C-alpha cells in the first residue's frame, strides 16, 4: 500500500467572476522511502497540490473533490486539530525560501524546541538535546554554539539546513519539499539535495520533491510527475521518462534542458505560454502549443492512462479511442 495516495484531487479558488480550478483531477501516489519529483512550469499547480496534502489551502480556496490518504487513513476531511497533528508529525515541509521561512525574532533553538514539544511529550531539556542532535544531523557545524543564534546569523544554505531540521523534528514519514533549492546559490543546491537524499536513505523518509530543475529530478527522484495547467500529464519512473518521454509537453521539456556533451543541437523551446487559470481551453489544455494536436484534442480532455510498463500519460495520441470519461 502506498504511503500517500492522492485520488482525483481538485482544488478551487473562488474568484470574483468564476471559480478558478488550480488543481484538476490530480492522482498520484508515493511509496514509503520513495522520492517523487514533481515538475512543471510556474503556475502548473505544484505548490497548491503540496498545500492541499498538508491541509493548508488558504481560504477561500478549498479542496473541491477527491481524496487524500496517508498510510491508509483519509486526511483531507479531518478536523483542523487532527490535521495539525499530521503536519510536522507525519508530513514535514520544506519551503522554497529559507530567508523567510524562519521567524526572525526567535532563535533557531526556540523554533526547534517549540516544534519538538508540539509533537512529543519530551521535557524542555530533552527537547533541547534533541534539537542539538537534529542540527548536527543536518550538518550545522558546532551546533552547541549555533543553537541560540537568530536566523539572520546563518547563511542561506545553513538556514535551509535549519528548515530541514525543523521538518524532521518529529521524524515524519513524508517530506514535501517545495523548491527547496531554488532560492539558493548553485554551489549550495547540490549540498541540500544531498542532505535530503541522505535523510531519505537513512530514515526511509519519502519525499515529494517539487522543482523546476530536471537535473535535480534526474539525480534524486525515483519517479517523476509532470504537471501542466493543474493536471498531471505524465508520470512514471525517472529513467524511463528522461529517456523516452511520451507526452509532447514532456518531450518539449526534455529538449529544453541543456545537456553536457551534446552541444550540437540548439536548445528547443516550447512556443507559447501555459494558459492562466481562467483561460484554460477545453479539450487538452496543451493543444494550442502541441505540435501534434488534432481536431479531437480540441474537444476531448485526455485521461491519464497507463502506457508501457509503469508510465502513465494523459494524451490522446496514446488513447486507443476507448475513451470512457
Amino acid at each position, binding site marked *: 500500500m502506498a504511503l500517500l495516495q492522492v485520488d482525483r484531487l481538485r482544488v478551487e479558488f473562488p474568484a470574483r467572476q468564476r471559480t478558478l480550478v488550480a488543481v484538476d483531477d490530480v492522482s498520484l501516489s508515493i511509496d514509503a522511502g520513495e522520492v517523487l519529483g514533481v515538475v512543471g512550469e510556474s503556475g502548473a499547480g505544484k505548490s497548491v497540490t503540496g498545500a492541499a496534502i*498538508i491541509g*493548508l489551502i488558504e481560504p477561500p480556496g478549498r479542496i473541491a473533490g477527491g481524496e487524500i490518504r496517508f498510510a491508509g487513513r483519509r486526511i483531507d476531511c479531518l478536523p483542523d486539530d487532527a490535521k*495539525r*497533528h*499530521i*503536519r*510536522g*508529525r507525519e508530513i*514535514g*515541509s520544506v*519551503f522554497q*525560501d529559507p*530567508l*523567510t*521561512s*524562519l*521567524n*526572525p*525574532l*526567535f532563535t533557531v533553538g526556540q523554533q526547534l524546541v*517549540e*516544534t519538538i514539544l*508540539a*509533537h512529543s511529550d519530551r521535557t524542555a531539556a530533552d527537547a533541547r538535546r534533541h534539537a542539538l542532535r537534529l542540527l548536527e544531523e543536518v550538518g550545522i557545524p558546532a551546533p552547541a554554539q549555533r543553537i541560540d543564534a*537568530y536566523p*539572520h*546569523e546563518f547563511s542561506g544554505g545553513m538556514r535551509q539546513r535549519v*528548515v530541514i531540521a*525543523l*521538518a524532521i*523534528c*518529529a521524524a515524519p514519514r513524508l517530506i514535501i519539499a517545495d523548491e527547496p533549492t531554488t532560492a539558493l546559490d548553485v554551489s549550495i543546491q547540490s549540498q541540500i539535495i544531498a542532505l535530503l537524499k541522505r535523510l531519505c536513505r537513512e530514515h526511509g523518509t519519502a519525499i515529494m520533491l517539487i522543482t523546476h530543475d530536471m537535473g535535480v529530478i534526474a539525480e534524486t527522484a525515483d519517479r517523476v510527475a509532470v504537471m501542466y495547467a493543474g493536471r498531471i500529464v505524465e508520470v512514471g519512473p525517472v529513467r524511463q521518462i528522461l529517456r523516452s518521454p511520451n507526452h509532447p509537453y514532456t518531450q518539449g521539456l526534455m529538449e529544453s534542458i541543456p545537456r553536457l556533451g551534446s552541444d550540437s543541437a540548439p536548445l528547443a523551446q516550447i512556443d507559447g505560454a501555459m494558459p492562466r487559470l481562467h483561460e484554460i481551453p477545453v479539450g487538452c489544455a496543451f493543444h494550442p502549443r502541441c505540435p501534434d494536436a488534432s481536431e479531437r484534442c480540441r474537444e476531448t480532455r485526455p485521461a491519464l492512462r497507463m502506457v508501457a510498463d509503469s508510465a502513465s500519460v494523459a494524451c490522446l495520441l496514446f488513447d486507443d479511442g476507448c475513451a470512457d470519461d
Partner: protein
Amino acid sequence: MFSTRRRLRLPVPTGTSCLIVAVTAGRVTGPRETRTTTMLAFILKRLAQSLLVMFFVALIAFLMFQFIGDPVHQMVGIETTLEEREELRETLGLNDPVLVQFGRFVSAATTFDFGISYQHKKPVADMILSRMPATLELSILSALFALAFGVPIGVYTGLHRNTWLSHVLMTVSLIGVSLPTFLIGILLIFVFAVILGWLPSFGRGDVVDLGWWSTGLLTTTGLKALILPSITLGLFQMTLIMRLVRSEMLEVLRTDYIKFARARGLPDRVIHFRHALKNALVPVITVTGLQLGSIIAFAIITETVFQWPGMGLLFLQSIQTVDIPIMSAYLILIAFIVVAINLVVDILYYVIDPRLRSARNAEARS
C-alpha cells in the same frame, strides 16, 4: 524583506511629526561593522541628531523674545522713564550682540533657568515644574489606556477579520479617529458628568503632595478625575494603535514564516500569540513611544476642556497674556521630552529587533 524603512511609514498625524521625521531620518544607513561598534555609532549619531533638533528649537524659542513684544515694555509700568528703561535694558543684557544673548539663553536653559514670568513674577522653571506632574500623569495614563485597549482589540480584529464584532469595532474606531478631541471630551463630560453625574467634569480632584511630585493616583477623587481626561486624550492613540496592530497582524499572518509555522504543526494559539503577535508588536513599540511625545504635546486641548492644571493649560494662559518666558520654556521642554523619548525608543527598537542589525547589513550588501 524586513526593511526597517517599511516600519517607518508611521501614521503620525501630529504637529510633532516634523521633529520626529528629523530625528528618524537616516536611521537605516550605516556601515557593516561588529555589533557593539555599530550600536555605539548608532547611538552617537542619534544623539547628535537630537542635539541638532534641540538647537533649532532653542533658536526659535529665543527668537520669540526678539520678535514678539519688548521684554522691557512687559516688565515696567507706564510711568517708568526712558532712562530707567535704558538702564534696565543694560542690566538685562538686551543691548549685547544677539549671538551673546543667545549663548546666554542656551546656557541658562541647560541649567533649567528660563527667567521670570512677566505675569506672575515667579521663576518660570518652578511654575512649569509644579504643573508637570499633572500633565505627565494624565499623559502616561492615556498611553496605558491606549495600549491596554488598542493592542487586544487590534489582535482580535486582525485574527477574526469577518466577524460582526470586528466590523463594529472597526467602524467605531473610524469614528474615534475622525472626531476632534475636544468634541470627545465634551461628549464624555455631557454623558458621565452632566447626565449620569458619576465623574467630575474638571480639575484633578484631591492630590497628595509628595514634595517633588503631586499625585492624583492616591485619592479616590483624584483617580476619578483622571478617567475622563485620560480617555479623551488616549482615544485617538487607542484607535491608532488598534488599527496599526490589526494591519500588522494581517501582514504578519501572510508571511512565509507563519505559513511555515503552520506547516510545522504548531497550535494556532502559539502561532497567533507567540509568533504573529511578537512580530506585529515591533512597530507598535516605536509608534507608541513616539505617540507618547505627541500625547504630552497635545494634552493642551484636553487640559483646556477639563481645566486640568497641567503645563498645557499654563501654556495656553501664557499665550493670552503674552508671557513669553513661559511660552519659550514650554516649547523647549516639550521638544526636549519628545526628542528624548524618540531617542530612547530608537535605541529600544534597536535592542529588541535582532533583524535591524542584519537588515542594515543586507541593505549595505544589496
